[in-house]
């Protein structure tokens, strides 16, 4: 077995060397470079996304009663702001692996940070429909989860993504997918990840995240195509710190009071379905096209809540069920111009037992911890965008966010989103 392997390896090396010398020869003959589709000779394909916006909004903090927020969930800042500028590099590493890195350069609160969005390698030659991915990646669950924000059709993510995943479900680990050898597209995926990031939390093994998804899709005639997906995520954790605690205007407080809001021995599972339908006359989407998409997620989580504010504290057993959906339609009515509508809806149903009052009563606890439910938050958005080329887009969006506390926020966003460098991918 071992010698066979070595022989195989030697043959491969010899072949590779022969290939290399042939390449040198042929490049001498054909100076024009009769190459393959490649980004930029031997450098990785580099693309830079520039995103900037002006937002008119009269609130600074996203509050969704019944949902503990984490990750990147939040509202844009009022006035001018640089958005999600991204630097992406990718290339085939050799004939067996593909690699990519995606960094977001974000400026907020006077500081510039580089956030690692994705950094993974992927196999190219496992064959038989199998692909293995390793590193940090956007999970394959749902439809929008694995698509970066700049490729979304609205200026902000659907509310359900912020409420349930804190933006995107992104984690480090392994993903394997298998595409069935059928005419109807059928693909299965499984992920094993740290489970240490929101919506999960720190766990000793750093390996508690599990995700499964299945996608199917096809064409209807020449003008339409569709995709339907189902997803499941499950994790267990020791502790999750919440960032979504209620803030009552820092100015009133002379002294800073330390707030600790932790969920201990937590259990979480999320199920979802997603659907996308696209239409373009004769399948030619250049002049006009229409896209409809909808996703629904439901999250069950439980654990022991510990809420500490200064010297006072409260404890309770928690069993929560939170769900949300959005649906949107985007219509390109003439080349370069699109109009879109989106409706978001959330609903939380959280139960508590064995409440222990150590200076904080149940009402105060519910309000300040973020677990307390109120009305069902919802949001309505309309957008108009103009993309004169493959590489530039200007967008105007108006949203009305009802946060469930009888408060309605009107948000107007004017955004540019541009892509420089290598050609982006046209994901479905």
């Amino acid at each position, binding site marked *: 077995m071992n010698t066979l392997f070595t022989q195989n390896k030697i043959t491969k090396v010899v072949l590779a060397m022969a290939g290399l010398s042939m390449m040198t020869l042929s490049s001498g003959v054909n100076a024009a470079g009769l190459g393959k589709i490649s980004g930029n000779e031997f450098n990785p394909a580099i693309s830079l996304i520039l995103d900037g916006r002006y937002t008119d909004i009269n609130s600074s903090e996203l509050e969704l009663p019944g949902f503990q927020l984490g990750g990147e969930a939040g509202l844009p800042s009022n006035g001018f702001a640089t958005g999600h500028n991204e630097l992406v590099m990718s290339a085939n590493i050799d004939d067996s692996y593909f690699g990519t890195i995606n960094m977001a350069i974000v400026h907020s609160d006077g500081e510039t940070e580089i956030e690692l969005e994705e950094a993974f390698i992927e196999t190219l*030659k496992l064959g038989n429909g199998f692909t293995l991915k390793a590193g940090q990646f956007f999970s394959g669950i749902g439809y929008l989860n694995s698509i970066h924000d700049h490729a979304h059709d609205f200026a902000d993510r659907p509310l359900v993504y912020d409420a349930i995943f804190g933006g995107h479900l992104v984690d480090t680990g392994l993903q394997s997918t298998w595409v069935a050898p059928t005419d109807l597209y059928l693909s299965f995926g499984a992920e094993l990840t740290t489970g240490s990031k929101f919506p999960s939390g720190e766990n000793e093994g750093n390996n508690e995240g599990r995700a499964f998804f299945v996608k199917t899709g096809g064409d209807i005639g020449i003008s339409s195509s569709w995709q339907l997906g189902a997803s499941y995520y499950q994790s267990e954790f020791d502790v999750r710190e919440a960032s979504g605690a209620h803030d009552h205007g820092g100015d009133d407080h002379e002294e800073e009071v330390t707030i600790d809001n932790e969920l201990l021995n937590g259990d979480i599972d999320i199920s979802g379905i997603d659907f996308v339908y696209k239409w373009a006359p004769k399948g030619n989407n250049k002049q006009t096209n229409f896209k409809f998409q909808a996703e629904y997620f439901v999250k069950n989580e439980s654990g022991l809540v510990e809420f500490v504010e200064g010297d006072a504290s409260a404890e309770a057993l928690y069993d929560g069920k939170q769900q949300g959906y959005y649906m949107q339609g985007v219509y390109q009515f003439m080349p370069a111009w699109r109009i879109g509508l989106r409706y978001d809806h959330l609903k939380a149903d959280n139960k508590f037992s064995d409440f222990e009052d150590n200076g904080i009563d149940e009402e105060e606890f519910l309000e300040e911890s973020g677990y307390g439910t109120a009305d069902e938050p919802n949001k309505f958005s309309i957008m108009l965008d103009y993309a004169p080329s493959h590489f530039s887009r200007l967008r105007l969006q108006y949203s009305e966010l009802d946060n469930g506390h009888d408060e309605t926020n009107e948000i107007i966003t004017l955004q540019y989103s541009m892509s420089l460098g290598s050609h982006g991918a*046209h994901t479905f």
Partner: protein
Amino acid sequence: MKTVITLTLSLMLIASPAFAKVNVFTCEPEWQALVQAIGGEHVKTYSATTAYQDPHHIEARPSLIAKTRRADLLVCTGAELEIGWLPLLLRKSGNADVQASELGYFLAASHVERIEVPVALDRSQGDVHASGNPHVSWDPYRLQTIAKALSKRLQEIDPNNATNYQQKLKQFNQQWTTAITRWEVMAANLAGKKVIVYHKNWSYLLKWLGVEVIADLEPKPGLPPTSKHLSHLLSVTRDNAPDAILIANYQDDKGAKWLSNKTGIPVIQLPYTVGGSDQAIDLFSLYNEVLSLIIKETR
């Protein structure tokens, strides 16, 4: 979990293909037609796009991933024409045989020299292709070179039928050479004529015929015609009147018709590729129809 694995494995076994015909995934109908012509009954073909779609604007949709998954050979144009979706199909398909390093990956444009290779690469010049104009199927001589390379590739992938592929190629070459002679006689009067085109997808054809392109309806490659550019074209045609405006029948005809109304220059709507009209059922009939239409309208 165990049942899932067993189920998955048994599904795979059921579905593993008997290597009867070479399963060829082509990106555009012209390559599907060429593969059919030189592969005959030993190939099964599928085209990712139709003659009414712009191959630059396709998405890696589910049905295409499923088709790529099962392909033995992938035949595409290359020269970045499919750069938005082909790399994604390759990554998502999990098919080892058609990856860029393998025999099952064939890019037509990389077997011939391209024209209009940009000197400087800058996106202010529009959606330019660093490797030059990808629309190589419109030069009959380049097409012949590609047919030869494609036949060789089929012979390597399916050695059992090698002699058959050689015969088919020989047959195709004879018919194609005869057709070239006929077309060159037929279109002799086109040399020296002047046209406006929508996009640079006729460059090889017009170069072969000796027709001069005086302007493009697109202000820059890939950008839709603007009213400012159209009014500029109007003044161009006053000084240098073209014989026709050529557009492919999947392209928006508004700009062309506006210019035609103002100037009286005829608009010729052409099938760009096989399947683009009732007559264009293979490469021979496609060339025939396009040449006849241009000759008829510019007489």
